[in-house]
């Protein structure tokens, strides 16, 4: 029997590193992600004149930007594998778990980067200072975890299905809606608005969403990835 010389962590890391390396060389997903975010943000900043936004509106804008930027690029990692036929190599080489979590980790990195870049831009261009940094950072991390769990599975699904673009947002939106609704509430608090009463419940929902979506995604992934 062939021996298994690598641990699961090694394999996940190998996928993550491979994706990061080819992304660094091609800048395919990153360009789409950041340009989309920047364009939307600039448009919003012009439209609002940089003043008069309530914390609620600002948080809606923030997550609309993140949501659509994420959908513009997070499926890339799978779409490219399928289109260039490297998916066959991957299927015959890597265990499904490693593929799922490797891609999951890479998408998480992209999203956290996007959020890190978006935060100062948001503060400057929309004139919306962060009032509570603890809430803000917790929201960003939990939000990225939830978004990434769902988009990794659905990204794989649309890549394998051979359908692109529009369908990604159509499929993602209904499943992401509970997440987005709660994210907007906690972000509102981070911007100094809203009510802090339900904050703990909110974070609980965000955490639960991330755990449920990751588990479901991980269990369903083999059915997407293999016939």
């Amino acid at each position, binding site marked *: 029997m062939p021996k298994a010389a690598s641990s699961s962590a090694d394999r996940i890391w190998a996928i993550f590193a491979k994706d990061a*390396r080819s992304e660094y060389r091609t800048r395919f997903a990153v360009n789409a992600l950041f340009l989309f975010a920047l364009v939307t943000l600039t448009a919003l900043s012009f439209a609002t004149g940089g003043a008069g936004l309530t914390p609620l509106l600002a948080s809606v804008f923030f997550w609309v930007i993140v949501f659509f930027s994420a959908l513009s690029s997070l499926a890339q990692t799978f779409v490219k594998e399928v289109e260039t036929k490297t998916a066959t*190599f991957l299927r015959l*080489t*890597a*265990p499904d778990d490693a593929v799922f979590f490797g891609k999951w980790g890479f998408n998480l990195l992209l999203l956290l980067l996007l959020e890190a870049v978006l935060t100062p831009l948001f503060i400057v261009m929309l004139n919306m200072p962060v009032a509570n940094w603890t809430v803000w950072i917790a929201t960003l991390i939990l939000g990225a975890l939830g978004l990434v769990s769902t988009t990794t599975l659905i990204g794989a699904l649309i890549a394998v299905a051979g359908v692109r673009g529009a369908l990604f947002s159509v499929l993602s939106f209904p499943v992401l809606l509970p997440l987005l609704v709660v994210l907007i509430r906690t972000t509102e608090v981070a911007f100094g608005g809203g009510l802090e009463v339900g904050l703990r419940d909110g974070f609980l929902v965000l955490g639960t969403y991330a755990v449920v979506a990751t588990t479901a995604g991980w269990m369903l992934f083999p059915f997407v990835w293999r*016939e």
Partner: protein
Amino acid sequence: MVGEQPHTSFALQIEGLSKSFGKRVICRGADLRLATSESLAVVGPNGSGKSTLVKIIAGLMRPDAGAITHSFDSTEVERAVWHRHIGLVSPELALYEELSGSENLDFGNRVGGWGKSAADYTAVLDEVGLGGRGHDLVSTYSSGMKQRLKYAAAFLKDPALLILDEPTANLDEDGVARVWSSLARRTLALIIATNEPSEAERAQSRFVVGR
């Protein structure tokens, strides 16, 4: 030559395999057996479904009916881990263009747990005639070099079952010679899907697709 051959006891068994796309029949109730050191040619005209059959055997596609078992020492291997012992060289498989040749091998080795070292990469690249080009990006390779790299990856993996779909596609004379001599030195179960009578003749038995 890279690696030892610890898996001398591999066996592939197919019983009552059927697959069709609508009215197009690829096989109906096919039975097949293949063990280590044996070889099988899958033949048939263009579009008859050679690649489909090969995919089914590799576990990349489901048959409509029938059973396929992969086993070592008569112990059946779960379908979910077939990928561990299968090597595939096919037009439907590609390596990463934005990585170099040896980065591709390194990726396969790490993610597949092949237990090989950098010295093995060099050896196998030499074997397929890519010596000295391992650090170039695959996107700079010619189509023949890409085909050679697929062989390098398949050989490095040391598969118990090696499946070749159009084995000499894009290869020049030197490439073809290298491939056949490398194959002759290895102990494995071999499946060759091809249109070329000369290639099919290299196999001990044959299976005709589309009947």
